[in-house]
């Protein structure tokens, strides 16, 4: 079934990965009422972890932003699973929580997390606009540069 959002993804040249399985005893997403809580996603492409390292040392802002965009693609893949395959059921992206693995004193987390925020707006239009935080972290799972969790409203 190719809905409106699926067509939009195709226009953008984005192929959704198979949703990543959690690395421990938790779920990739939980639906509570109309809200879908997506567990923290990582920059995974073709089943492989990408962007391992720190922004400000191993990666510049643009690479960090690309990592955040890739994390966003993985978030959308989980949301699609939560919607039973129909992304047109997404009412809106409510919230993104962005963690940037960075060097001491780094202060450009927002620019990095914008990679994911911009993707949500490209894919879902105004319904992709969300509340968010963007913060630094000393270390992240598997050493990745960016981890982002999300809350979506679905119909």
């Amino acid at each position, binding site marked *: 079934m190719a809905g409106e959002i699926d067509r939009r993804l195709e226009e953008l040249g984005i192929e959704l990965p198979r949703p990543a399985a959690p690395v421990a005893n938790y779920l990739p997403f939980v639906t509570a*009422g*109309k*809200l879908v809580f997506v567990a923290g996603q990582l920059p995974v492409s073709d089943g492989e972890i990408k962007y391992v390292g720190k922004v*400000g040392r191993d990666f510049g802002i643009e690479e960090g932003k690309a990592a955040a965009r890739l994390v966003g693609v993985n978030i959308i893949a989980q949301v699609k699973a939560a919607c039973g395959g129909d992304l047109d059921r997404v009412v*809106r992206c*409510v*919230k*993104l*929580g962005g963690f940037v693995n*960075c*060097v*001491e*004193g*780094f*202060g*450009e*987390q*927002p620019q990095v997390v*914008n990679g994911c*925020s*911009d993707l*949500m*707006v490209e894919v879902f239009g105004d319904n*992709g*606009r*969300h*509340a*968010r*935080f*963007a*913060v*630094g*972290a*000393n270390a992240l799972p598997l050493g990745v540069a960016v981890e982002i969790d999300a*809350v979506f*409203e679905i119909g």
Partner: protein
Amino acid sequence: MAGRVEARLAELGLDLPPPFAPAATYEAYVIVGGLVFVSGQGPVWGTEIRHTGKVGRDLDLAAGREAARLTVLNLVVHLRTACEGDLDRVRRCVKLFGLVNCGPDFADAETVVDGACGLLADLFGEAGRPALSVTAAPGLPVGIAVELDAVFEIA
């Protein structure tokens, strides 16, 4: 309009800062159902950043707690807009996530964020007590000392 919470702010001698508008593809807050998700805020007064640096190195604990209190006022000013000006519609603070900009050995992040919890309790009473997470960060956007992210329930 002087409601109960506004009266409390006045008793405490506190003004709310001008709301800080996000400069990217996200919103200051998103309302879904009866929940308000407020984006991560910092210790700013409009466009003026009041507290930067690392707590325990550039700021002492008292200054860190003061930064946390100012950050709460930035959450509350967005919350007031979300409530169409009537803060008495706030049912409770559901969740507070506090990030403290500090060095790797700083162990008092909770004490810093407790400054925020204290003010929330002063303003909203028992309903101001959130589920709380606190994390230390090696860096925060534009070097702010504290960032707070919150979910409130409103009527």
